[in-house]
């Protein structure tokens, strides 16, 4: 009775079916894409050899999947299915990575591709670190942030390659060079790339509801997907230009590749794919906290629309007004045009992030106070002020480390994280946004008490 009163739709498995449907459709597209890549000889057949580990992973996933169907114990079956799913996902990703490497980097050779990747790793890592830290109330787990980035780098790039090629073949080749062709290319990039990246955020929203709380989380996941996509795209452009100019001399080829690196990994690191896909994430994040299905769909559609528009606007602008290398103001123009065209979208995104952080912070403070007032021991009144401030949380952890070393630091960090999870769960329950049974909140509380006991004993 209490559960029914608390939740109008207590258990909503339909979102898992929807996620499975989207995943199945994407898998079919990726299989078709792989087949086309090999059939049209854009991928050398030796790729099959490098794909053997992927086949091994899929075989192992099949074994675990079959074992899951044989198991009668639900817990064992669930675990086997989880392992099968992870292995299958790894297999698909590793195969796509093989295809990506051959498709995007073979012109310049593996050495140049490796150097380009190494050059892009620190900047991409920096971007991920900054965006994750912006979520100052409750940071998203690294595993999901990295999965999002891997989707952007491997899956999204594989999804768009044939979509954009088919668009170009169907429409681009019929258009005369000039504004119409530029607009067509900008539409193609905006629509296909944002859909391919944004679907990752939608899947996280559908399947990882516990780690997808609000607009802030949506922005973090969206930006992570964008960083991943930007990583692979940067390598593609760097290796392509290096291969084009290499016959003219290594120094010219290096300069061309370095120019791409600066434009995409410095200037466009935040003002580019990260902004666009974070806008998708913002829409999905807003939908996370809306009640009605229509409202949610509108919010998600709005996120996609503004992301596609931002991407389209930049691509069209860059092609309409190319910067001439001969211009004495070329360097200033390169910087100004990205600020003028992408800057406003990034500013709107930062406003959404700021508002989301404010709402989230206020709600967490209130829930922590309520939990402390309840006197169940999970949150003490004296801890509320510390838990609501990232700097004071850090200060408390550093003080713990000074007293008990790194182990004390880690234990307190785990305790603080669990306490914030509890407050977040309370917030979602209050807003009727959770589909976990009420026992989940009690389990979180028990977990906090266990961690507190461990912290105290240490």
């Amino acid at each position, binding site marked *: 009775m209490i559960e029914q009163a608390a939740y109008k739709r207590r258990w909503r498995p339909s979102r898992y079916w929807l996620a499975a449907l989207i995943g199945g459709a994407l898998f079919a597209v990726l299989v078709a894409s792989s087949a086309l890549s090999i059939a049209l000889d854009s991928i050398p057949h030796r790729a099959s050899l490098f794909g053997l580990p992927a086949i091994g992973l899929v075989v192992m996933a099949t074994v675990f999947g079959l074992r899951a169907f044989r198991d009668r114990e639900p817990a064992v079956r669930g675990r086997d299915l989880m392992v099968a799913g992870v292995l299958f996902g790894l297999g698909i990703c590793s195969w796509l990575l093989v295809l990506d490497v051959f498709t995007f980097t073979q*012109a310049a050779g593996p050495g140049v591709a490796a150097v380009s990747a190494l050059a892009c790793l620190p900047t991409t890592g920096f971007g991920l670190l900054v965006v994750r830290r912006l979520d100052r109330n409750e940071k998203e787990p690294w595993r999901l942030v990295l999965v999002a980035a891997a989707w952007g780098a491997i899956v999204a790039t594989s999804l768009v390659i044939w979509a954009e090629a088919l668009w170009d073949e169907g429409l681009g*080749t*019929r*258009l*005369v*060079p*000039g*504004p*119409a062709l530029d*607009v*067509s290319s*900008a*539409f193609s990039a*905006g629509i296909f790339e944002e859909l391919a990246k944004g679907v990752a955020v939608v899947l996280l929203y559908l399947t990882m509801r516990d780690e997808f709380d609000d607009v802030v989380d949506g922005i973090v996941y969206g930006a992570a997907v964008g960083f991943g996509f930007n990583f692979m795209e940067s390598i593609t452009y760097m290796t392509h230009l290096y*291969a*084009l*100019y*290499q*016959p*003219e001399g290594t120094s010219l080829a290096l300069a061309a590749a370095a120019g791409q690196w600066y434009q995409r990994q410095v200037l466009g690191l935040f003002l580019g794919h990260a902004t666009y896909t974070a*806008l998708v994430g*913002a*829409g999905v994040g*807003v939908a996370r906290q809306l009640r009605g299905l229509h409202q949610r769909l*509108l*919010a998600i*559609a*709005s*996120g996609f*629309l*503004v*992301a*596609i*528009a*931002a991407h*389209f*606007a930049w691509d*069209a602008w860059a092609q309409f007004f190319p910067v001439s290398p001969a211009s004495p103001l070329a360097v200033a123009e390169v910087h100004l045009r990205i600020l003028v065209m992408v800057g406003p979208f990034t500013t*709107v995104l930062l406003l959404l992030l700021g508002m989301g952080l404010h709402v989230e912070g206020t709600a967490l403070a209130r829930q922590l106070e309520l939990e402390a007032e309840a006197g169940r021991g999970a949150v003490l009144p004296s801890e509320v002020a510390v838990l609501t401030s990232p700097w004071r949380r850090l200060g408390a952890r550093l003080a713990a480390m000074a007293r008990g070393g790194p182990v004390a630091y880690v234990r307190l960090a785990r305790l603080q994280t669990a306490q914030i999870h509890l407050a977040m769960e309370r917030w979602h329950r209050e807003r009727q946004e959770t589909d976990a049974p009420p026992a989940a909140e009690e389990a979180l509380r028990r977990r906090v008490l266990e961690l507190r006991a461990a912290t105290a004993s240490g």
Partner: protein
Amino acid sequence: MLALGAAGLLILVLGLVVFLRFAPLGQRTGLAARVIGVYAYDPVQRTVAGPAATRFPRTQPFAARVSWASLPSGVVVGATWYDSLQDPAGSVGPAPAARLAAGDGLVPEHVPPGLHGNLPGTYTLLVLRYADGRPVEILARTAVVVEHGP
């Protein structure tokens, strides 16, 4: 979020308007030009030599021969090579087809300034019909590959 979505929709509609402004419907005339072939080209003598080919070393200039006489004489046409970065790399016209037909019919490509040879990759030749000084229709298209190499 809805306001942002509406703003996004407005930007995309503006893009569509620009697209239709520069690619209006009903520009097809049904005309088709014929590219006879692409040949190795001597820029000094301004002549082609050898058989038609689809692949060239990067140090070998090349030119396409277009049959301008197959087009109505008053139609304003031109042809442009685009290199592997989609930048223009040599053109003839726009001019009435009759005037171009009076010449040798060759469309040579040019090595990008500052480089010793062509950029590797696909070079595309577009034969275009012009109206009001703007290209409006593709009458023919051909492509050749410039090989990687010294």
